């Protein structure tokens, strides 16, 4: 690049000024917009998904405010319907799915396996541009009227009844979907081909295993939702009879196609989060992960079984009793690997040396919320109960416990854990612990009452519940919780920004953590490592790191059991 950095514009911070790294190498706008450095692309993603997170969060806030009173008094029915639709679409397709893979995964996958970059740096940049094109289309769609079908696009409502911007929203998701496919492709090839010498599959951090499993889903699942969107557009624009029975179509076909992607999509959101949590628990317990291979293969098992359970969203949709039986059974099968993970994480704490730093608080929060989310999934997989609670707030609570309680806790935990590496700065620990606590309390206050609401029978997607005022108390609690949660989400954004300028410079390995990413500088240089690392150790070699002769914090030589 000809636009070399103007030395006058160099920040006055001594630490970053003295060593060249990926952040201070160049400063021009083009050095960011045309970068092929996976770390810079990760930051581009970080900015864009944060933007969409707060848009989606704003919609959520309006939804919760409307539900404060039984009557539909804050917004019109159509507006409310658009709010929950856009909340879902933005959060699912433009925040949760790219969140951990595209930010932390992008930043860390090459660093963790000892590579200079991803296998296809330019494709990585293209994937960000596709995301932005999709995002701009989605913004345009929202600003010019939006969509009111719910993020699920159920036909024939979406194809022949609503007069909102289905095709445009579908196209936005279609384009963003390719961003997701390309990221997955890049990770799979990178993990197969670019591992440093000695970095065998069983030495990989479990974060990498989780991202590998996620990438498989992105590669195999996302094309199906793309096809589904094309079919919706074809029926809507060309009146081809695909889903609407009046045109000779089958509305259940839509649901099968949609959930074939959208159920595995939940695992795109939660698997990377599980990977993050695994790293954090190992570091702050100073221990190798209990049952490494079980945790690794359970990620793959989740990815595989995740493709076989889609019709558990359809137990009352009109599928036969026997197919419902099969899908109920398989749903219990997919619950098992998640349970195995939780047990292994818990066992990892046993005889650890546990530190309560902010990332670990998020990990504890994850364990609590994910366990509740997972266990309530057992209710929904039980056919007899699903009939009563499906399409009620019970489901809303359940998937928020998984997708927000699980995925977002993991995302925030990971952001705190790797923030010193990403920014070269330390965040303020006290504030971070406070934020973790606020998020945990706010989250439970928001979503736990919704389980009760759901079993009481309150249907989801109702903007007006004046026929059933008995639901109000729980809704008020939920809205109160949402405001607390909102504060909890705003705080990290504020102090992360603050720390970029005022935070203490971070050392290369402030947590004394295992993993190749901690063996390079903070922030890392453009090509990550000055020389190619050669790996001779297992992942999570905390025994070595903490052994006295390595100059680690602990001085006494305590004998270590096998």
């Amino acid at each position: 690049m000809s636009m070399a950095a103007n030395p006058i514009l160099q920040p006055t911070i001594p630490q970053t000024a003295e060593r060249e790294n990926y952040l201070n190498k160049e400063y021009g706008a083009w050095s960011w917009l045309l970068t092929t450095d996976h770390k810079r692309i990760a930051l581009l993603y970080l900015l864009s998904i944060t933007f969409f997170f707060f848009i989606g969060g704003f919609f959520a806030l309006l939804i919760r405010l409307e539900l404060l009173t039984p009557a539909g008094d804050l917004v019109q029915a159509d507006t409310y319907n658009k709010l929950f639709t856009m909340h879902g679409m933005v959060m699912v397709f433009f925040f949760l799915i790219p969140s951990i893979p595209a930010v932390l995964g992008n930043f860390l996958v090459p660093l963790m396996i000892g590579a200079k970059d991803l296998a296809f740096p330019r494709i990585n940049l293209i994937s960000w541009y596709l995301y932005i094109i999709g995002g701009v289309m989605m913004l345009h769609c929202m600003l010019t009227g939006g969509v009111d079908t719910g993020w699920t696009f159920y036909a024939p409502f979406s194809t022949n009844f609503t007069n909102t911007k289905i095709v445009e929203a579908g196209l936005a998701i279609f384009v963003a979907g390719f961003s997701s496919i390309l990221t997955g492709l890049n990770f799979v090839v990178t993990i197969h081909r670019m591992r440093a010498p000695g970095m065998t599959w069983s030495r990989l951090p479990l974060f990498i295993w989780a991202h590998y499993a996620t990438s498989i889903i992105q590669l195999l699942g996302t094309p199906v939702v793309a096809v589904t969107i094309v079919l919706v557009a074809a029926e809507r624009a060309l009146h081809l009879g695909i889903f609407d029975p009046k045109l000779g179509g089958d509305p259940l076909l839509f649901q099968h196609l949609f959930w074939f992607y959208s159920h595995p999509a939940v695992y795109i959101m939660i698997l990377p989060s599980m990977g993050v949590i695994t790293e954090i628990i190992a570091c702050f317990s100073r221990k190798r992960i209990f049952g490494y291979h079980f945790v690794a293969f359970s990620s793959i098992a989740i990815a595989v079984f995740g493709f076989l359970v889609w019709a558990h969203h359809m137990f009352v949709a009109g599928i036969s009793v026997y197919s419902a039986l099969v899908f109920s059974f398989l749903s219990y099968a997919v619950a098992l690997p998640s349970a195995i993970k939780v047990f292994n994480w818990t066992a990892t704490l046993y005889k650890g040396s546990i530190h309560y730093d902010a990332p670990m608080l998020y990990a504890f929060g994850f364990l609590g919320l994910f366990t509740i989310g997972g266990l309530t999934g057992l209710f929904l997989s039980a056919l007899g109960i699903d009939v009563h609670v499906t399409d009620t707030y019970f489901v809303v609570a359940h998937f928020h416990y998984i997708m927000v309680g699980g995925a977002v806790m993991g995302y925030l935990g990971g952001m705190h854990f790797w923030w010193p590496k990403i920014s070269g700065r330390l965040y303020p620990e006290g504030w971070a612990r406070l934020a973790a606590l606020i998020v945990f309390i706010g989250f439970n206050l928001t979503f736990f009452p919704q389980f009760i609401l759901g079993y009481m029978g309150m249907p989801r997607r109702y903007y007006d519940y004046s026929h059933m005022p008995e639901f109000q108390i729980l809704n008020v609690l939920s809205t109160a919780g949402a405001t607390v949660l909102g504060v909890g989400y705003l705080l990290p954004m504020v102090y992360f920004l603050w720390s970029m300028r005022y935070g203490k410079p971070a050392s290369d390995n402030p947590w004394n953590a295992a993993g190749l990413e901690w063996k390079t500088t903070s922030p890392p240089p453009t090509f990550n490592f000055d020389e190619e690392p050669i790996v001779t150790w297992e992942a999570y070699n905390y025994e070595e790191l903490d052994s006295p002769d390595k100059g680690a914090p602990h001085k006494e030589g305590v004998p270590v059991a096998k």
Partner: protein
Amino acid sequence: MLNNFPLWPEQASTLAAHVDALYIFLLIVTGMMALLVFVLIIFFAARYRHRPGVRAEQIEGSNALEIVWSTIPFLIFMVIFAWGAVVYFKERTPPADATEVYVVAKQWMWKVEHAEGQREINELHVPVGRDVKLIMTSQDVIHSFYIPAFRIKQDVLPGRYTVEWFRATKPGVYHLFCAEYCGTQHSGMVGSIIVQEPAQYEAWMNGGSTGPLSATGEKIFAELGCATCHRTDTQGRGPNLQGVFGKPVQLEDGRTVTADENYLRECILDPGAKRVKGFQPIMPTFQGLVTEEQVNALVAYIKSISLSKPADGARTNAGLAAPDDSDRIDAGAKIQAQAQSNAQPKRSQVQ
């Protein structure tokens, strides 16, 4: 006792007790699982908190433990699965002699027709202690007929019938919700289920009826000229419909299907799709010519001239409850049949 607990929905059907029993079982089991995990985490986090000088003890793992904590949850899951399946079978299998009520959903309204001819909008009167089977279809988009106090819910689809049933146990007025998002006034698509003592119900039933639904159907049958082909002897150009309901029917393409409500409905709206063996494809489609209510009346009429008391009614009902399952044909043939009916667009309508 449960009914006095304000955070618990009212229990007003026979199914509700079954669902609640399983729900309470799940609350206890998952509560214990959660408690176990949380207590361990909190205990470990406190007991093994970092102390200067004390190092973590590295443990590789334990295959025995992995097997234990995979097998035990799996066995518990299977108990939940089996119990859930049993309850679901109850929910999806209407008793053979249930009173039939037709429901037509549209944006944003529930239209109800009783077999005796009473019509209601956004209300459904039923007597206490009688099995009631709802035969439901939609005029436009997908809706869902949900009665929380009865713990039942079933999506209502355009283009086919779906079924749900209940037996109310307590007089009262209960919420009826549309549970599948259906557009602007989705949250206004609510109504009431009015459960009455039998005597009150009879009194309500006797006021202002237009005659039984099957009689309406007979009139439509005559007006549309159906009887010219569907004669009551063997000489008609179409099959004799006497006694056909609930019986297996041989199709021209070699398949056998059960003549349930969905089959009769399909024959009226798309006669070419499953043509009876030995008859020419001469029947025109009535798609667009008859309303959903008229189709319901025709189906009710054909049922009424079939069997006064279907001996194999239970089987028929099961078949209807699962619209995709004609239990007379094996799974392979069924898939093939569905594939064929999907692959053949309703071209016959054009003729």
